C-alpha cells in the first residue's frame, strides 16, 4: 500500500521532477515537496486533492499537519495509509 501511494505521488509530480532535472531515485521519504521549492502551497493542496480523489477518501489535514512532516513524500504517504 505504501509503495503504491508513493508511486502515485511520483507519477503526479513527474512533470515537475523532469523540469528540475531531479531523478525519481533522488526522492527519499524526507524530500520536502514544498520547502524544496518543487511545489507551491496551492500546488501541494492540488496534489493532495488528486490523491484524495484517487483513493476515494478525505484525509484529516489538521492531524496530518500536526504530524510535522506532512509536506515530505513520506509524510504525505503516511497521511493516506489506514490508521492503526
Amino acid at each position, binding site marked *: 500500500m505504501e509503495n503504491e501511494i508513493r508511486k502515485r505521488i511520483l507519477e503526479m509530480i513527474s512533470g515537475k521532477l523532469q523540469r528540475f532535472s531531479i531523478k525519481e531515485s533522488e526522492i527519499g521519504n524526507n524530500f520536502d515537496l514544498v520547502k524544496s521549492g518543487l511545489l507551491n*502551497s496551492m500546488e501541494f493542496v492540488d496534489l493532495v486533492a488528486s490523491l484524495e480523489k484517487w483513493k476515494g477518501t478525505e484525509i484529516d489535514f*489538521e492531524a496530518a499537519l500536526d504530524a510535522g512532516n506532512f509536506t515530505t513524500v513520506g509524510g504525505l504517504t503516511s497521511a493516506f495509509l489506514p490508521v492503526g
Partner: protein
Amino acid sequence: MHEMEEELMATLAGRVWQTVQQYPVKTALELGEREFTYRELYDAAASFAQSILELEDPNPFVAVMADKSFSCYAGILGILIAGKAYMPVNPRFPASRNLIMLRKAGIRVIIAGENADEELEQVLDDYENEIFILFPEEIEWREKTTMIPRIVDPDQPAYLLFTSGTTGEPKGVPVSNGNVTAYLDFMHGSYEFYPQDRFTQLFDLTFDLSVHDMFLAWTSGACLLVPEDTSSFAMSRFIREKEPTLWFSVPSVVNVMDRMRLLKPEIFPSIRLSFFCGEALGENTARAWKTAAAESRVVNLYGPTEATIAISRYDIPDEPGKWKVEIGIVAIGKVFAGNSFLILKENIEDQTGELCLAGNQVVCSYYKNEEADRLGFFIDNETNTRYYRTGDLVKMDDSGDLFFLGRKDSEVKISGYRVNLKEIENVLEKYESVRQAVVIFDSREPGAGSILAFIVLKEDEKTKIEEQLNLLCRDALPWYMVPGKFIFVDEIPLNVNGKVDRSLLMKRFHDGK
C-alpha cells in the same frame, strides 16, 4: 508638546522610542519560542545605529540582508534610529536580482543576518562599490542605552522597496517618514490597538505590508508575533497556539487553509480584527474567514507600494446581505482622509477608469528613475495636484465606495506580490534561442494561479529548452515570478490591431492545441 518631541513624533523611530519609554519591559517581539522586550529590542537597535553612524556613510539607505530574526528587526529599527532608511534584501531571492537593487540604491552598508554569509558572498562578488558589512556578532552591544533617534526631515525616506518593472529591472520606491506616519495616524484614528494586542507578522520584509505589522504594533506597545514557519500550512496551528488578536495576510493564505478544510466554525476565537490586502479579496474567501474567526471585524485594505501600505478600506458589515461585492470581489471602499483620488476614464460616459492617487501617503517619485516617473505620475492642471497612476481599473458606487475590477496593463498580483509579466518576458527573450516570449497569468488555475510562458524558438533551434529556461528564470527572478509552465508554439497569434491575441493563445492552450 516640546519642539523636540514633536520632531521625534514625525519619524518612525521617534514613535517607537516613545513606546519604549512607556512599555520598556513589555514583550515587543515573539520569534518562535523566544521573546524580547521593548528595552531589549531598542538596546540592540541602538547598538546597530551607533555602528552605522560611526561609518559616516553619506548614502541615505542601509540594506538589511537577513532572514526574519532578532538581529533583522533590531537592524531595521537601528537604521531608522540612525536617521537612515532601510532597504530589505531577501537572501532567498536570486543574487542577480539582489545585486541590481544594491546597485540602484548605491548601498555601502549592509546589516547581515546570522546565516546570510553564503548569499552575501554571491551578491558581493560582482558588486563594485566599497561595502561595510555589519555582522550582529561583531557589534558592540549596549544596555540601557540613552540614545535618542536622530531627528530627520519627514520627507526623508524611511524605507526603499523595489517593485516589478516593465523594463526587466525592478523600480525603487522610496517611502518617506511622513508617508508612513500619515498611514499610522489614520489607522490609529480608525481602529483601536492596545498594548495587550498580538499582531501577526507573516509578510516578507521586502513587502510593504510588513511595515503595517511592525510599526502599528510598536506604536501601540503591542507584541509582534513572527512564526518560525510562514507557510500557509502552518497558519492554523500558529493561530491556535499563539492566539493573535490581530490578523493581517493576503487572501491566498486563507484560500489554502479553506481548501484544507481547516476553517471550521469559530476555530480562531482570539482574533478580534482581521485585515486583508495585497490581492483582490474574493467574497467566498471573506465568508470562509468570517466563519473561522467569527468574533473578528474584517477589513479589506487596498493600496500600492507607492501609496504606502494601504490607502483605502472597506469594513465588511456583520450582516452578510449588506456586503458590497462586484464580480465576486469585495469592495475596496473609501480612500483614507488626507488623500484624494480621481478616476481617469477614456470616455466621459465610461463606468470604469484608472484609479489615480494623491496626498500625504503617496510618494513623490521613484528612486532615480525618470522614465518610470514620467509614466507613473502626472499633474492635474485643474487642481495643480500631482497624481500617481495605479494602473488599477476601478468603479465607484453612489455612496463613494470603490470596486477593484482588474488591471489596465500587464501587471498581476501573485501571492500578494506585484508582478509585471513584461519583466518575465524580458528575462526569457534574453535567451539566445528564444525569438519571442509572451507571458500570461492564468487566473483559471485554482488559488494563486499560474504563470504560463508561451515561447517561439528561433528557426534553427530543434531541441526544446524548457530546463534551461526554467534555470534562467530561477537565477534571475524570485520564486513567485518563475513560470509554472513553458508552452512552445510555432507562432504568436495577433488580433486585428496587430497586438498579441492573448485570449486566443489561452483558448488554444486550454483546448490542448
